[in-house]
């Protein structure tokens, strides 16, 4: 929402974007300094993706851009132009939960739930990329998603089950 100002705050031109979000085409005009996560949350209204640090460290903001996991707090809204974005809301559109979500529930892999969408999107991308083959690699692949509540153990168990990765016995 650019404003004309008399003093101080500058006016910078907005940029047009056209992208697909959760299967729906969106055409819009954004202030370039708007981060993608802010745009998704407040511009598009998809608040399932969260903001945790705005520095690309915590992973709360993880979405899929063209199928690849990306930290949307580091992306500027204009950078979405021409890309396909998927957020947590697209994972279980109907009554049934996605098997990954079921695994997280069954293994008590969430407490406050704030980091959960980020882990889900990261794990889905892992499934496609086939990157993780054992527990150590899996933990490394998840090292870009922080959780302060769970100590990760149950998250790792759930994601390992979903990916078919063998876990070390506890």
């Amino acid at each position, binding site marked *: 929402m650019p404003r004309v100002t008399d003093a101080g*705050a*500058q*006016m*910078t*031109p907005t*940029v047009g974007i056209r992208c697909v979000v959760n299967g729906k085409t969106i055409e819009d005009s954004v*202030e*370039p*300094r708007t*981060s993608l996560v802010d745009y998704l949350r407040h511009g598009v209204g998809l608040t399932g993706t969260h903001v945790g640090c*705005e*520095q*690309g*460290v915590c*992973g709360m903001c*993880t979405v899929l851009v063209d199928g*690849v*996991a*990306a*930290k949307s*707090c*580091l*992306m*500027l809204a*204009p*950078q979405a132009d021409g890309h396909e974005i998927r957020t947590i809301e697209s994972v279980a559109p109907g009554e049934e939960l996605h098997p990954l979500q079921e695994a997280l529930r069954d293994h008590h892999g969430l407490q406050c739930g704030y980091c959960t969408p980020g882990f889900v999107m*990261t794990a889905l991308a892992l499934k496609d990329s086939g*990157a993780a083959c054992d527990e150590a690699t899996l933990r*490394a*692949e998840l*090292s*870009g998603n922080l959780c302060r509540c769970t100590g990760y153990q149950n998250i790792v168990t759930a994601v390992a089950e979903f990916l078919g990765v063998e876990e070390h016995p506890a």
Partner: protein
Amino acid sequence: MILPPFEYVECTSIEEVIDALGDGDSDRDARIVAGGTVVVPMMKHDLLRPDVLVSLERVAGLEGVEQSNGEITIGALARHREVSRSESVREAAPMLAQACGLVASPVIRSMGSLGGNLCYGESASDPSPVLLALNARLHVSGPNGTRTVPIEDFFVGFYETAVGPEEVLTHVEIPRQPRESRWTYRKWTPRAREDKPLIGLAATIRPDGAARLAVGGINPTPVLLGSASVRASDSDLSEREVNDIADAAAAEVDPFEDLQGSEEYRREMVRVWVGRVLRALREVEVDR
């Protein structure tokens, strides 16, 4: 932490980028953005407040990895993940594949570009010491044409590179490495996994014994350890020689200090890790 306002310019060619960088008066601060994993955090941390961001995302000719006769050319926009998985890089410069596979965390690796990592001149960079050890050449384009910068001349100062304010890094060239060279890249973070390297040590030893050791995260810039790069014959380095080289390396560096470690600690880590790297290379069986 909303970013301060800036103008965003999309370019489709290098010429457009150079124009956009040079446009307007000298007071105007224009910066390049690619993946955003360096620039955006710096802006969020209030270290940079450019007036203009010039996007490279759509510029043709900056992606990809090409291989020709053992020499590799990597576009500045190639993502770390791409570099680490590239067959060509794994074959001809495996040390770089390894280093790029260790940058930050998995998602950052698929968002961040090699060029971006190099151009902000941060000392604690994984690819930088590797490129120093591999004697890379960097191609830069600007209003006065293109030029080649040897890697040793690239890191000019603290967060400062040889790329001028109106120039753009286009690609990185790695010369053919002799087969049967031994190599290793060791990264150490004393704390958590996502840390920058406290020390990132790259070493190659050619069959003729010539060695290049380079280190990032220690000096204000990534540097070649000149005095420690040693002539070694094909036979193993003795334990005494390894210790001498390690001591020389520790004496040679001029470490900065920050929250990761004091000056003395960095110096000591250079000594310890150079020793370990040389010992490890001594044991390496060379692939045929």
